[in-house]
């Protein structure tokens, strides 16, 4: 399906009578620029947030915070590190996705975009909350969000990969 030249450049439907788009429908050229902006914003803000989290973890190490370095806090330490690592890498992935859309507009999918943004929230958020409220060797309830984030990430990657072609 090729984009129709008369359609608006936004993802918002032009009128109520317009037929809703399916989950696998590509985004129009104008919509792509919206996606690019959105993922660049999400990526850079995410990077800022999770780099700050990394700095905070380094600070906890520097001041030997009992919350972070004492015996019995191993699970908390692991999960906070995972939150920092996943948040940082997913932020970079969002930026990479935005650049990919700019180079390959056909790869833009609403579902893929939503899944990637959801994973940026759910994966590091789940690790963070699960780490803060860890019970001994077990993470807190926040870890329940991690599998959802992981599946969303897989969905985003698969959808994008399947459309990233020069043909």
């Amino acid at each position, binding site marked *: 399906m090729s984009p129709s030249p008369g359609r608006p450049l936004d993802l918002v439907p032009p009128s109520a009578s317009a037929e809703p788009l399916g989950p696998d429908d590509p985004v129009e050229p104008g919509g792509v620029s919206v996606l690019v902006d959105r993922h660049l914003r999400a990526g850079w803000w995410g990077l800022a947030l999770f780099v700050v989290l990394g700095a905070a973890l380094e600070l906890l190490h*520097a001041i030997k915070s009992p919350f972070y370095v004492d015996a019995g806090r191993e699970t908390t330490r692991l999960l906070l590190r995972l939150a920092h690592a996943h948040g940082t890498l997913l932020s970079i992935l969002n930026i990479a996705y935005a650049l990919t859309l700019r180079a390959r507009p056909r790869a833009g999918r609403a579902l893929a975009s939503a899944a990637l*943004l959801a994973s940026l929230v759910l994966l590091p958020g789940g690790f963070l909350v699960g780490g803060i409220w860890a*019970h001994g060797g077990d993470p807190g309830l926040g870890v*329940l969000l991690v599998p959802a984030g992981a599946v969303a990430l897989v969905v985003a990657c698969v959808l994008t990969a399947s459309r990233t072609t020069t043909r």
Partner: protein
Amino acid sequence: MIRREVPSDACDRLRAVDTAAPGEIVACALVVAAAAGVVVRATRGRRAARIAMFALLTVVTSAAAGFVRPRLRQVTAAPREKPGPGTVVGYVSSAACLGCHPGEHASFARTFHRTMTQVASPATVRAPLDGRPLVLDGRTIRLEQRGGAEVWATLPDPDAIIEGKRAPDVTRRVVLATGSHREQAFWVAGKRSGDLRLVPYVWLIEEQAFVPRREAFLIPPDEPMPPVRWASSCIACHAVAGEPRHDLESDSFDTRVAELGVSCEACHGPGAAHVERHRDPVARYAQHASKSPDTTIIHPGRLPPERSAAVCGQCHAYAFPRDEMGWWTDGYSRTFRAGDLLEPSRTLISPATMAGQAGAPVIDAPANAIFWPDGAVRVGGREYNGLIASPCHEHGKGERKMTCLSCHSMHGAADPAGQIAPDRAGDRGCTSCHTDVRSRTHSNHAPGSSGSACVSCHMPKTSYALLSAVRSHRIDSPDVANSVATGKPNACNLCHVDRSLAWTARWLSEWYGAPAPIIPEGRSRTAAGAWDGLAGDAGVRALIADALGSSDAHAASGTVFAVAVLEELRRDPYAAVRFIASRSLSRIARGASSAAPTLHRPVSAVGAGFSRTNEELAALALGPDGRLDPARLRELLAARDERAITIAE
């Protein structure tokens, strides 16, 4: 009848663990809301994509919750009867040390000091928790795992037994487990608050067997095992800064500890000031660069020798608190901390204090339960008493004054049992000071043999603890006259068990010019292993039973004589002696399983290793069949020292 005693708040505690904190739920909800927000925004105008995305997230989260929740339910709270947190200011527990000292924390955690006392759980209890019946005096005792991570015991009511009443079976949660090296004992809650009582069976770790506790200690067969309570008998050495907090009126305890087990602050002192100061990274790096010692923490290796030895001596000494009434409240938590001398807080027990020295505490134990007549301590685990009576400590100066750290290390020791410092293994503990040639060559035993090792002659196994012989830490030299006078076995005859005291005296005289002692006729013509093993007191018999199972004794004396004596010791009236004899026989059998001779073959068939003259056989009290000669056996048993012996471990 079994009375179930389930703590009333057990279910509440489980629910508390199973329920998430409000803040946790709010945080989860915020993350979910943020995720929903970005999905809604990203799928504006794409209803199908939105529905697909929410369906996906809902299904996966629900599946994860279904997988994780049952596991969370298995988390179990610690028993409520366990000692509470200490009230002495300044202790922060070993958990606070890990962040800066991970290597030291790991090396300490490998030792048996850490696990001296632990909260009982399937992870800390070494015994099988399968509920197997353990029968004692017609009553059945069981240990079993319940509710995921709890350990429970069914036993006759320990309080009723102590009160001399009829004791119904009760089922109680096991609160603490003491020991993890040689044996482990288990504590259940008693009737009074904070009063922990022992399960009457202990678990032997090497043997992988339950034995009645009264058989795991050297006590006369007709003597009941004295009742012990964790908060009075164990707290001083099985925890950091233990406070019994005994209430005299109700005879109950509000026990507190800084930490269970022997951990960092037992040896380094309270760590709060150190932790606080070194949270500041600038202060840390300034300390790294400084050559002056850190004044906020104790380093036992940098203390003067007397204070360094006292760090270990706070537990490894026979001592009695100077302020007994104060001890029942605070233990030693306010009168001693690492770096102090022992004397201000306790009286060191010695033969003189037990003989009624003016001002000395009255100890409710016979002197022969603690000391040999020559003053050497005969109870294992009390090495400090031996150390300070050693010439290497008494006469040493500065760095050459022997302390515990001259040989041992809490960190870096490869062997968690002996904790010998790697650079002091073998003879190096001695040769670091005794550097002269004579010190290295005077053993007159083949280099590299066990007989040439310094400790074999100068630290013989003449102490006893936990069904084993333990090396004496009063450094001395073999002395036949002392063996005659005190009954204490000498180092030579603990390997050369088949030789008499006269034989030992002859060699000591020839090699070292020792004066010839006067040896009674019966002992001079009898192998020391036979005399001590059959005619000695129960403590000596236990030591000989252990020695007869050692590879050193087998190398020096063969196994036939050992088997003959051990067979008789298996009929000893003391259960502990019988147990050690059986264990030694098992060791001989394991060693002999690949060798041709069986244990009971006639002497003539055993081979060159056991070709003896009739005179030698008489000295060994053996008949020609390799078994004890009945007439000689009767003679030795008639000479037995029958004094009741209790080794007061």
